[in-house]
């Protein structure tokens, strides 16, 4: 059995990367992922990604916060029932503010939890098969092929006008 070799094409322009992605799709090679310095609509269209579901976390957080806010205010007021300024103990009007702020706060928490869980961040070690140029000016397209067929894959990337970086056994030999 052959070990897969990971090869990344590094493109200066978004469009080259997109082209490469298209070519890869109708080739036998497996496209793994793309790295881009900026969020690229074209790329995500090329990869036909669905929009993130992270919003549901946000919503749940918000709903929880809304009730938590009112609950806290009402509970504490009930526990220590002191009349202030002729207001009833359960003075809902002022509690709206607590409710609102908690809604936002917990919505944000949900938002963040959603993000971290969905993207499996934070990840500190072994950013494997990642090229540091991807955070700079390059769009990286990572694909893999059986150990024999590297040339074809590199050609594909070159054809689309990108540099190529071959990862073999996690040791990058960078040929130009």
């Amino acid at each position, binding site marked *: 059995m052959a070990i897969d070799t990971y090869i990344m094409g590094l493109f200066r322009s978004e469009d080259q990367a997109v082209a490469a992605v298209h070519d890869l799709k109708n080739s036998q090679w497996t496209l793994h992922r793309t790295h881009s310095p900026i969020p690229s609509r074209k790329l995500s269209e090329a990869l036909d990604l669905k929009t993130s579901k992270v919003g549901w976390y946000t919503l749940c957080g918000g709903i929880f916060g809304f009730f938590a806010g009112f609950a806290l205010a009402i509970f504490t007021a009930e526990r*220590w029932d*002191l*009349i*202030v*300024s*002729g*207001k*009833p103990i359960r*003075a809902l009007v*002022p509690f709206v503010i607590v409710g609102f702020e908690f809604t936002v706060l917990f919505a944000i928490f949900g938002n963040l939890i959603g993000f971290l869980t969905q993207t499996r961040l934070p990840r500190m070690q072994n950013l494997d098969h990642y090229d540091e140029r991807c955070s700079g000016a390059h769009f990286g397209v990572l694909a893999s092929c059986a150990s024999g067929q590297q040339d074809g894959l590199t050609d594909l990337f070159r054809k689309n006008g990108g540099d190529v970086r071959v990862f073999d056994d996690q040791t990058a030999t960078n040929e130009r």
Partner: protein
Amino acid sequence: MNRRFFLKLVGMGSISIAAGCTPDPYNQPRPDKTLYSLVQAPDDMVTGDAAWYASTCRECPAGCGILAKNREGRVIKVEGNPHHPINRGRLCMRGQAALQGEYNPDRIRTPLLKENGHWKPITFTAALSILNDRAGEAAKAGPDRVRMVTEVVGESLLGLFETSLAHWASKGPLVFEPFAYESLKLANQAAFGIEGLPSYRLDEADVLVSLGADFLETWLSPVEYARKFKTMHAISGGRKGRFFHVGPYQSVTAANADLWLSCRPGSEAVLALALTADVLNSERATSLPRVLRDDLKNFVAGLEREKAIEVSGVSANGYERLSQSLLSAEKPLVLGSASIAGPNALQADFAANLLNLALNPELPLIDFERRHRVEVADSRSDLAVFFRTLQQEAVDVLLLNNVNPVYALAGSADIAAALKRETPFTVAFSNFMDETAALADLVIPTAFSLESWDEYGGTSDAVSTLQPAMGRFIGAPHIGDVFMKAALGKTAPENTYKTYLIAGLISRGLVRNESDWLKTLQRGGIFEANARSRPFDPAKFDAAAGRRLLASLSEPAAGLTFLAAPSLRFFDGRGANRPWLCEIPDPLTRVAWQAPVLLHPDTAKTLGLKQGDLVRVSSGSGQLEAPVYVTPGVRPQVAVMALGQGHVEFGRYAAGRGSNPVALFAAEDDGQVGMPRLFAEGVQIAATGRVVKLANTDGDRTQHGRKIAASVAMESLASLKQSKLNGLTMWDFPLTLPLPEGYDPKRDFYKPHDHDGYRWGMVVDLDRCVGCGACAAACYAENNIAVVGGERIVEGREMAWLSVERYVDAVVPEKITFLPLMCQHCDNAPCESVCPVYAPHHNKEGMNNQIYNRCIGTRFCSQNCPYKVRRFNWFAWEWPEPMQLQLNPNVTVRAKGVMEKCSFCVQRIKEAHNWAKNEKRTIRDGEIVPACVQTCPTDALVFGSLMDPDSRVRKMVDDPRAYQIMGYLNTKPGVIYLKKVVQEV
């Protein structure tokens, strides 16, 4: 473990605990740091309960009866004795401040002997033997070599002084009182043939005229006369008596007058004579006995009223109104001049007597049987002469009992010189190092009135007892005991002053025996209802004496006249070392701690002076520096300064504050007239270029057309009854009680809330408030309110929970309304909801609680309080030793950084709850009496539950005069005010 081991362990444990409890025998535990439980408590002391001792106030000669509240062996509050005929349970601010004499940090602890200019503390025994030897030698040397000057004291003590001095072959003591009413006594002598001070039935008068008499401040017996004044002057049955005040400046008394006639200093006499003339020319005179009428006619012969009006500078219209009121009066009463005699005071007092005679020769409103004790005081000139001749006369020993002539007498430099010299050997019996004591050779502190057995009759019909309300605080003996030991020694009739006192009373037939004495003590004295005095017999009137007296009537002087005003706060200056009296601002200027000189705006303009300018006032006799206070309350060309401050000695609170107006006065005259001349004519006022920040607590004098200290004209009272308000603005917002019935969907967002049994509230009748400020002092005493000092007051950090605000009419500035302002205990209190931690909140009985130890000091409550009656502890305030012993153990002493305010004396409410609970009943109306309500001499404040339909407060709020300050904010205050009724006279 087995049983034995366990027992050992327990034993060891308990022993070690016990060991921990025993105080370290080597260093004495400090009483304030250590808690003691009494092994054998005195039978009248229950820890946590107050013991009350009936006694007599000796802060001024009026002699009001007091009840001293003793908690755990120390007096923490004095209140009026309800049985006492003079004050009927009320007290003035000076009486309240008696405690601060007792606990004054500057009180002298041991006798002090002066050795080459330095004070050497000695024991009381040593002091007594020194006194004994010195006086003994003097007595041997010859007659009258031991002389004494004493304050006004009771019969018994005075008798003892005389006996003792006689024992030293010397004549009796001189009685010195700065306010000795010489002019009044001489005038009475001339007119009525009695050299004394009869009391007046103000309460029965329907028209009252004062030629300067400040009977609400210091005059004779202020608490008594304040009560009587309000009896005749408060609104009742749709009418109130009329009160005219004639004088060059507006005292608190004048501020309460329906009409203040501002006249030139010294012209009161002329006015009174002119009025007499009016009376004699009216048909009133027809009823006069012929002889008297002719005599009176002679007095006023050749005196035209126009001339009088012109000389005195009063408004003709004002004079006319006064004259008319007097002529139409049924029971008119005319009072003489102020406690401090201004120019022509003697003539004014005499003219007042003439006027009274002309109005009703039987003088029904003057009670000749009931005399004021202060009449025993010797005339100022006698004292002046005595002190001046001190050099010539061979006096070896001079005894001074609690008098301060060096401060009080004009031209006291030579007196000081006389005291400084080797002989006489001066012994000052004084609790404070005042100006006089400082010059003495030996200072012997004596028992304070609250520590003494004694007797004092403020009026001739009452004997009022003093008993120790606490242990002797510094172990000083009573002056009576001092004399019995030092002077009489073996020959003393009794061995202690107490027994001497009782024996004396028995021999005078005032008490029958020991047990009767005890009853008397409990009651506070012997008060038999004085028999109505016989009508005055006009035949007694001696015209000749009067003529001699009026001969010396002088024209009002040209130029600037400087007058000293008797001070409601400091009396003659003896109050100046009581921090409460310094801290509570002057009722009219609202200035605390400082003694400004009052000038009329015109005068200030011509002199080019502004409020707060520091000026140098100089007369022929001396000069002083004081800040200017500009007010229309004084007449142009008149400068007025309150007496009492400007001490050079007399402790930390008095020394070096303000200035002493006496400095400007000429030395006492030769005693022809026999009265002081406490004024200076033709004074110079020059700016020093410096400016003083006045420590006044008021932001603005006028109400800016707001509904704060509201008043209603007498004639519109009736229409007030009909008018039912129902609007939302400041003026047409209805009275909304802090009860569910005060709820109105039109005005209220939230549903009403109920109260549990009571809804405490207060009704303040502005028509009864005379602005004396006794309530404020009582509040300081009851609630451990901190004294912050003048500098802090300038910063706006005063702590008074209750202050009597003074509002000046924007149009007619001499129209003044006093407004006692404290926490309004609102039902919709704005302060409550803004606090993040519930420190202020509404309790079940409708009060606005402030929880000190919950407060974190955001100060939002104060910001949101429309009345700004909340006070913040900006610093950690201090009670210098032993002031802290006065603190009320039932009230928390507030820490730095917390908010505080009036609590309606919640501690008293709780106490009433306990009583009611023990007796299984509800709290009765009037059972709870907050400190301010308790002491108000005129019953302006009433406290009770608004929920109780039969309570007095509930009934009073139905009065059409009832309103709430800033009620339109819908805070529903629990303090409801009754409008002041102003009448055009």
